[in-house]
């Protein structure tokens, strides 16, 4: 490490380094420094890492000037902002973020509608408890061909669910989630929620057996949320109902016989199944939405509270113990996706909902029903249909949309809304945009993300950002240090 601040030829700028990271504090005497005006992020990072400063070796740093990241040289920044070279710049340094680089793609036969991850840090891994073995990271993908596939991290299919004639889904699967490392749930256009028993004989082959078929919805089930601890499933269906289900045969009530596949004697094709699983009904089915319900999620801190979003523009808080709607938030657009962002100190979560107007709106469920959204995330060119909170911090989330991109959002980078955007509230823009890799997407930006719509996304601490879509792939991008801690 040389002393980069010695630059006889160019102008010098006086900078003050600050940080919020406790382990990277500079001594008071070293905080002010004269640096060459043409220095960039990399140079500043080397200055900070040098022996005379932090002596940290090679931690990449990013620098925040006035709330925005320094992306040009200091000189350019000063000229662009109309500041003189004499002005004292305050640089807040944070650990540099690594873009979510593309890592792998897993090919499918049909569109991938949903993905989930089983890893040590994922919710399912935690619910698995001690039975989860290290290195048993699995990716679950649900496909429109009606099959569930379980992959290991190196891209091999370990297990595939049976087809419709063998106890599997008879139509496209729209949602699937790991409950534990041995149990998973899926739901789809055949209106059923299926609970599967997953067994692995060795690390390269496994078996999926249907254990339970849950009937109750009269429309396609578009979203599914599980709680492995209480063994409960929450579903949202196009019939406008929110279903609350149990994964155990014993606790689940009987199913409505009219909904069973052989309930009527018509001339339509019979689905003959060789394997029959137990058929059960919902713990409660709440027809609370007047339009297709698009998503339902558990409250991350209290599993007896759920939130549901619907195309009827409402976001409802449901008390699951009594199956009643507690509050209703009306928004201006149909809602297509929902995720709860946990907030620290045991307060209620912030809800992010993707709307048909191509943005993600953040709603505080505690606020009165009259208030509008807290913040709007803008940037998607098509419907955001899947959202996932960051596993590491409560400021970040990733969204998947029909425009063929996943976007990573940092809720701390905020700007006020412009007049065109309605002028109210604050707006955030994506930190990173993850495009689809592969032959179709690279060629040209298709109209409305045609051919590369992303249907599902999961952000795992270990495997990264896993997304699946219309390009028949599950795509994995690095998810570590994408957003500042």
């Amino acid at each position, binding site marked *: 490490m040389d002393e980069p601040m010695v630059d006889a030829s160019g102008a010098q700028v006086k900078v003050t380094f600050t940080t919020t990271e406790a382990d990277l504090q500079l001594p008071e005497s070293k905080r002010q420094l004269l640096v060459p005006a043409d220095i960039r992020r990399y140079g500043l990072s080397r200055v900070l890492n040098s022996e005379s400063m932090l002596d940290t070796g090679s931690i990449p740093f990013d620098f925040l000037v006035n709330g925005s990241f320094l992306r040009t040289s200091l000189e350019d920044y000063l000229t662009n902002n109309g500041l003189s070279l004499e002005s004292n710049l305050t640089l807040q340094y944070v650990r540099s973020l690594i873009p979510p680089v593309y890592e792998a793609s897993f090919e499918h036969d049909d*569109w991938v509608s949903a993905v989930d991850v089983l890893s040590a840090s994922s919710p399912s891994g935690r619910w698995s408890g001690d039975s989860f073995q290290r290195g048993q990271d699995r990716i679950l993908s649900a496909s*429109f061909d009606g099959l569930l596939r379980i992959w290991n991290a190196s891209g091999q299919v370990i297990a595939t669910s049976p087809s419709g004639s063998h106890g599997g889904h*008879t*139509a*496209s699967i729209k949602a699937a989630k790991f409950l534990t490392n041995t149990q998973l749930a899926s739901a*789809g*256009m*055949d*209106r059923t929620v299926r609970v599967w028993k997953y067994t692995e004989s060795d690390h390269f082959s496994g078996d999926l057996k249907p254990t339970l078929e849950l009937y109750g919805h*009269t*429309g*396609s089930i578009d979203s599914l949320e599980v709680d492995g601890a209480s063994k409960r499933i929450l579903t949202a269906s*196009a019939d406008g109902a929110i279903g609350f289900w149990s994964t155990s045969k014993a606790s689940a009530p009987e199913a409505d016989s*009219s*909904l*069973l*596949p052989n*309930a*009527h004697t*018509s*001339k*339509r*094709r019979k689905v003959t199944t060789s394997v029959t699983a137990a058929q059960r009904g919902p713990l409660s089915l709440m027809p609370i939405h007047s*339009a*297709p319900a698009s998503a339902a999620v558990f409250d991350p801190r209290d599993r007896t509270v759920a939130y549901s979003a619907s*195309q*009827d523009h409402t976001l409802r808080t449901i008390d699951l113990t009594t199956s009643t709607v507690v509050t209703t938030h009306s928004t*201006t*657009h*149909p809602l*297509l996706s929902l995720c709860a962002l946990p907030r620290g100190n045991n307060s209620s979560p912030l809800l992010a909902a993707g709307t*048909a*107007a191509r943005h993600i709106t953040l709603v505080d469920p505690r606020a009165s029903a009259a208030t509008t959204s807290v913040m709007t995330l803008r940037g998607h*060119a*098509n*419907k955001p*249909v899947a959202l996932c909170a960051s596993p590491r911090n409560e400021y970040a989330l990733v969204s998947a949309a*029909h425009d063929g991109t996943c976007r990573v959002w940092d809720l701390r980078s905020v700007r006020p809304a412009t007049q*065109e955007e309605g002028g109210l509230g604050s707006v955030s823009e994506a930190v990173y945009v993850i495009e689809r890799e592969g032959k179709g997407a690279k060629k040209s930006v298709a*109209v*409305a993300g*045609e051919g590369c*719509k992303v*249907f599902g996304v999961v952000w795992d601490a270990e495997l990264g950002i896993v997304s699946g879509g219309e390009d028949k792939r599950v795509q994995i991008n690095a998810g570590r240090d994408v957003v500042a801690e």
Partner: protein
Amino acid sequence: MGSKITDKKRKSRDSDSESDDELANGLFDGILSQSEDEEDYLPSDDDDGVEDSEDEGTGASDDDDDDDDILSDDIPSDVDSEEAINRLVKQQGELEITEPGVDPKREEDDGADRNYRIEKDANGGERYVYDEIDPVYDSDDSDAKGPVNTIGDIPLSFYDSYPHIGYDINGKKIMRPATGDALQSLLDSIEVPKGWTGLTDVDTGNPLNLTQDELELVRRVQMGLLPTDVQDPYPDTVEYFTSIEEKMPLSSAPEPKRRFLPSKNEAKQIMKLVRAIREGRILPYKPPEEREREEEEQEEVHFDLWQNEEPQAPNPMHIPAPKLAPPGYDLSYNPPEEYLPSKEEREEWENADPEDREKEYLPQKHNALRKVPAWGNLVKERFERCMDLYLAPRIRKNRLNIDPNSLLPKLPSPSELKPFPTVAQTIFRGHEGRVRSVSVDPTGVALATGGDDGTVRVWELLTGRQVWSVKLNSEEPVNAVRWRPTKDAFVLAAAAGEDIFLMVPTHASVTPALDQASRDILATGFGYATNGQQPAAPVGKEPAAKWARPGTKLEDEGVLIRITVRSTVKVINWHRRGDHFATVSPTGQRSSVAIHTLSKHLTQIPFRKLSGLAQTAAFHPLRPLFFVATQRTIRCYDLQKLELVKVVQPGAKWISSFDIHPGGDNLIVGSYDKRLLWHDLDLSNRPYKTMRFHGQAIRQVRYHRGGLPLFADASDDGSLQIFHGKVPNDQLENPTIVPVKMLKGHKVVSKLGVLDIDWHPREPWCVSAGADGTARLWM
């Protein structure tokens, strides 16, 4: 002086030419001096003149005097001087009398107004008795108070022995005034009256009393003082007119020699200054700062006289001169080559009559500005310009100063009319060939399309996933697909060729109960038919349509009924309750419009005869009315009274489609001649508004049915136009129609663009069917 007097005489004679030579004696001078005020100054003038002439030479002084005289003699036109002359003449008359040897007859000639009369005196001789002279108002004859003793300078003692003391001017004796007795005079001498002198007035013989003032005067004279009590007897003259004579500035006199000689005194003064400057005692200039400061001070003195003046509009009658055209490139001294005339052009210009020339000049090239010659026609040109400005009348034209934008009706901006579809969000690909028809099911989840490949496909609306499909006909395209508009069943009607198919597109999301309900609805008619309740077709007449099962292969797919009519069906429209639907086969002649009843499996032809080719037909959304559009008109029939209610004439040449507003009172009509027409059914049978926004034929028009004030049209130019069309609740208000968005995306294939359009039942989303083989969801 002598010459001056003669000059004066000459002038006087010139002015009084009627005067005789006799008047030109020495006395004349005096008379003039009395009558002319200016004469008083003359002696001093002359003295000055003499002194001047001693200085400057006699010639100059003579000239000066002449000029003076001319100046003084030029005055007599004045009224005052005329009066003076009259007086002068009278006095001349007096003079003649005192002057011996004057012919009195000359006076008689003067006329009747003589101022004397002739009397006989004591000797019998003639005696002239003059009238009392009536002094004019400002006459200074103040002495003639009483009788004046005319005895002259002889002592009064000569008359001591006479009773009179002399004679007055008329020769009458002035009698000695009576004197008092001795006692009285003694008393008088004892008691001295005021002003008593002890003298006798010569004129009157009375004791001479003097006033105090007179005594004081006498005293002063005796003392050798000034007779009057004034401070300064010789004050400086305050002249009413200046007496300083201006030198003639344009004198032709040569400059005196001394002017050419440098003045030694001045040289001395200058040398003194020079020495002072050299020694530094004085500075020739002030130091610059001081000078600046002084200048600033001087500047501060200046103030803006007009600073508070407010700008005023120019005179309303002022018309500025029209501006000349600015010079072009060809007027440049160094124009580009293309502006220079060719040889022929130059010759033509030179040979042409100056009047006929297009331009007054020929462009010329000079390689330096200093080589440009003077412009020979400058004066002529300027003159002509001046003549133009002077002779050509200028008229102030009153232009209408109206902002054209203000004349446009005030429309809300599209951003205020949100929501409306703006971009394509899902593209439904799968059809081979054109997609002819689209329909969104009443729940808003499924989309049905029909296309040229003879298939009907059902899609998941948001994801664009095809969930169901059936091939109805391998040869004929599917011309129309329409969902049955109720949520209690899941029934789709599709028309391919002459067949109308009713199907239950049961994909996985349809519950068995719904599926069964749909099948039951379709199947009830079979029982109705078999029970023999269907009216038997008239013998010898082919039934209007044949209802049948389409065969097991299609029945397995969910297609449950086939209705075969006589000609190709292009349009299907359901009644709102879902029991009836109307089909239109434009080529079907008499049976082109048919109404099918689902529950009875019955097809009826409502019109025995239809004037014109039927294009489309629809049920009124609320009332039992039925609308049929032919090429030019739309007819509205009452289905209960079975009568024609209304004829709407949009004025289009060929109506392609129409749609009725969910409120029921308004109608939009699309036509193949690119027009979109809005009709208010209550208002008139002519269109309320005509819109021509498309470059090609309009294929389909459609209102939003879910409560949003939107409608859209689809055109062969590959675009959809979204309109905000708000129908007010108040009957008196007019609907607001604002075009909000043009949706482009469909490709035009063999001159066909967008063929059909449908709205989502709730949201501002619309689906279009394109000739490029795609259907698109716009939101």
